[in-house]
């Protein structure tokens, strides 16, 4: 029997793998959406309340910043275990991909918020001045200047966050979340089934590559900052060095 046939007859791959992949996609997808929903406003809030923001609130900013830092300094594996009661409270269960979305979201929101904050910081102050002189309200500056102008950076931040979520979801799998992490652990580590382990790794690599590729494509789509963008792809002629004198 050759290697491919062996793989196709392995129940770990034919039966367990599709389910695991679906669970991983579920975890990444659901917690990705919640991370965006909570992390984007949090990042905007941190930027707006910072010194030089549209609404400086030094004390509040410091408190939020400390909370974010605390969450980020707890290793995810520990955070996940510590949050088991909360997962049970919210989802009614402490195992399964849905339950895992609670620690996944809480683990990545601060990370994403920091990335959002730094993307917003890259928006030139001159643009904000221009919007202020137009008579914009603070909310209009956030919605019409900060977020749209930072869109390439925000898209890249979301891509990085989704890739991080793939890794976190594998960790979550081991403590009961299911998914590819669980598969690799059960078959690869506990049953010494190297084939499943390798296939799982390959799928994870492809998944991450796919997210990164899609993310980069999205960044190019929303980035209008240089003339050689999507709309005006001008190929410069090669310099005439080949022509002899």
């Amino acid at each position: 029997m050759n290697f491919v046939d062996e793989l196709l007859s392995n129940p770990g791959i034919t039966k367990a793998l599709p389910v695991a992949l679906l669970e991983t996609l579920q975890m990444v997808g659901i917690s990705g959406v919640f991370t965006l929903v909570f992390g984007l406003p949090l990042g905007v809030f941190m930027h707006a309340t910072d010194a030089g923001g549209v609404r400086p609130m030094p004390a509040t900013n410091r408190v939020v910043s400390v909370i974010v830092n605390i969450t980020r300094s707890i290793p995810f594996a520990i955070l996940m275990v510590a949050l088991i009661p909360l997962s049970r409270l919210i989802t009614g269960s402490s195992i399964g991909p849905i339950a895992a979305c609670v620690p996944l979201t809480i683990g990545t929101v601060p990370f994403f918020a920091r990335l959002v904050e730094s993307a917003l910081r890259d928006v030139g102050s001159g643009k904000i001045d221009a919007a202020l002189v137009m008579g914009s309200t603070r909310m209009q500056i956030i919605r019409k200047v900060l977020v749209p102008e930072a869109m390439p950076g925000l898209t890249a931040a979301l891509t990085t966050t989704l890739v991080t979520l793939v890794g976190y979801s594998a960790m979550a799998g081991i403590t009961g979340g299911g998914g590819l992490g669980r598969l690799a652990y059960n078959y690869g580590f506990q049953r010494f089934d190297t084939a499943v382990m390798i296939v799982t790794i390959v799928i994870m690599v492809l998944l991450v590559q796919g997210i990164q590729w899609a993310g980069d494509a999205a960044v190019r789509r929303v980035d209008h900052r240089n003339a050689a963008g999507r709309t005006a792809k001008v190929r410069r002629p090669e310099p005439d060095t080949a022509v002899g004198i």
Partner: protein
Amino acid sequence: MITVTDLRKVYHQGNRDVVALDGVSLEVPKGSIHGIVGHSGAGKSTLVRCLTLLDAPTSGSVSINGAELSTARDQDLRAARRRIGMIFQHANLMDSRTALQNVAHPLEIVRTPKNEVRSKAAELLRLVGLAGFENAYPAQLSGGQKQRVGIARALASDPDVLLCDEPTSALDPKTTDEILDLIHDLTQRLDLTVLIITHEMHVVKRVCDSVSLLAGGRIIEHGRLRDVAADLGSELSRTLLPLPAAEPLGAGAVLEILYSGDRASEPMLTSAARRFNLDLNVLAGSVETLAGTQFGHLRIQLPDGADPAPVAAYLVEQGVSVRLAEKEAV
């Protein structure tokens, strides 16, 4: 009309106070273009930021058409700012918006109906000579085109006042003149009141009706362009009508003379030479038309031993400003 009264701005840096504006007062009448010139560090940037309340002045007042800005808060301030159109050195356009969307930006803020926004923005782009560039992103435009979009955007809210912060300092000479002519043309067409802050005397010469010289946070000279230019020996006159350095020949007295208007066409130099039977030597000169008036600024040298007093008296009689130049200063 822009009225600024005793504007002061003090920055606190650590333990010391830095006085950026030290009691600036100025008035720009409706329909005129006023230039504020000064070297770096004179307080120009601070003045612009205080005029729009981007920085709160320490004391003093800024009012636009009688509406007080310096004490206005939130909603009133936003309403007052909508009466001001502002042009920046680097245009400060939104990169994520097309030219049309950039011009539409101030209109969206006041919730103008969508179809009205589009037609008005397109009309403004036409006004600044950018018809056909509606869908171009700023990155696809040249510096001058970006500034035109900036001007169209500044005009979108039908402002009474146009505030220009170094509008041409990032542009080449040809584009500079095109942009200045556009500002001049729009000022007349839309009856705007314009304040241009710049370090380029060329800008003042080309478009301004009046000018203020800012130094050390104070306005040290100001007036109508033709008046300040005619004021021989003043800092502004010297920068408006600069004389190149030239070595005097021999030991003869050197006179600096300044004439304007009708005098410019009369051959008073040759008539003086004939009258006193002297050979007058022109060492340096600058002749320009400023605000529609011709000006001449000359440095002339008399022959060795000739008494400059009667020559000077004669020229003054002819309506020319004269002063005895210090030899070292030449």
